[in-house]
């Protein structure tokens, strides 16, 4: 079972994501340039500042050639995970609805927050219970989720209004559930020494899914 970690110019949480995947026993590999992603069992897009987030976060990265490969794998229903900048890229690619706008404060914010699990029927959330509250860190300047004209499939909600996101949305999935994107950083909460380990089960859920142990209703 091999997981791709897509590295765009300017991504900076790729190594953190790689470590979290390896920590739960998954094999991971960095993908720097366009190549066939068929050999991977899951695809992950890390946080960071792809292309410096110079126009809009994720705008340029979303139009990279590798995007075609990611869309092809999405079409096959392969599990795809986008964290922070990864969420912004997936939205700019049109694989998920809505947009991520600047935080109301106009400032970058890095702190631990609390989210609630709304939907655990995805390859990444089977080990969480609906309604369960998790402590995860956020670190972003553009974390305010705004719904476009399509109603998203909500997976995580903030338990209080931290950035005026519509419906307190912190994470959404594609309608078929295989693509998950969230603004908080689970890869920064995979060991107690870092301040919390509520993010660990997200990676463990993926491992279980890939091992086919846990049949996940579509």
């Amino acid at each position, binding site marked *: 079972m091999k997981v791709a970690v897509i590295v765009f110019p300017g991504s900076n949480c790729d190594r953190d994501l790689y470590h979290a995947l390896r920590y739960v026993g998954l094999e991971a590999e960095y993908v720097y340039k366009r190549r066939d992603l068929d050999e991977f069992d899951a695809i992950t897009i890390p946080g960071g500042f792809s292309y410096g987030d110079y*126009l*809009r976060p994720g*705008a*340029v990265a979303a*139009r990279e050639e590798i995007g075609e490969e990611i869309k092809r794998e999405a079409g096959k229903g392969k599990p795809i995970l986008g964290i922070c900048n990864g969420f912004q890229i997936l*939205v*700019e690619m049109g694989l998920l*609805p*809505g*947009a991520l*706008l*600047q935080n*109301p404060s*106009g400032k970058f914010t890095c702190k631990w927050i609390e989210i609630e699990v709304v939907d655990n029927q995805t390859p990444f959330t089977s080990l969480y219970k609906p309604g369960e509250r998790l402590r995860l860190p956020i670190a972003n300047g553009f974390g305010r989720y*705004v719904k*476009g004209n399509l109603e998203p499939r909500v997976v995580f909600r903030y338990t209080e209004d931290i950035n*005026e996101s519509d419906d307190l949305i912190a994470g959404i999935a594609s309608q078929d559930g295989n693509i998950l994107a969230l603004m908080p950083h689970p890869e920064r909460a995979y060991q107690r020494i870092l301040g919390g380990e509520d993010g660990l089960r997200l990676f463990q859920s993926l491992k279980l899914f890939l091992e086919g142990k846990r049949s996940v209703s579509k």
Partner: protein
Amino acid sequence: MSTERRGYRFAIDIQYKSHIRDPRGETIRRVLNEKEGLPVKSLRVGKSIHIEVEANGEEEALRVVEEACKRLLVNPVVERYEVRKL
């Protein structure tokens, strides 16, 4: 009438669609009202991109700018834009 290839300069004014709230604009408006005492009724902050394009005429140059907006510069989900000549 073919004109030789030269640079044409435009400004693209990109703003959030009106139904999208702009908290930062509201904060700045409040500072101008309350702290500076200026009669500002509303304020919204968007992007202004100055772009120079190489083309054989103004229409062709405008088409390139429109193409750049469609492909990259504007996010149609939340933004609208206007192009003016510089």
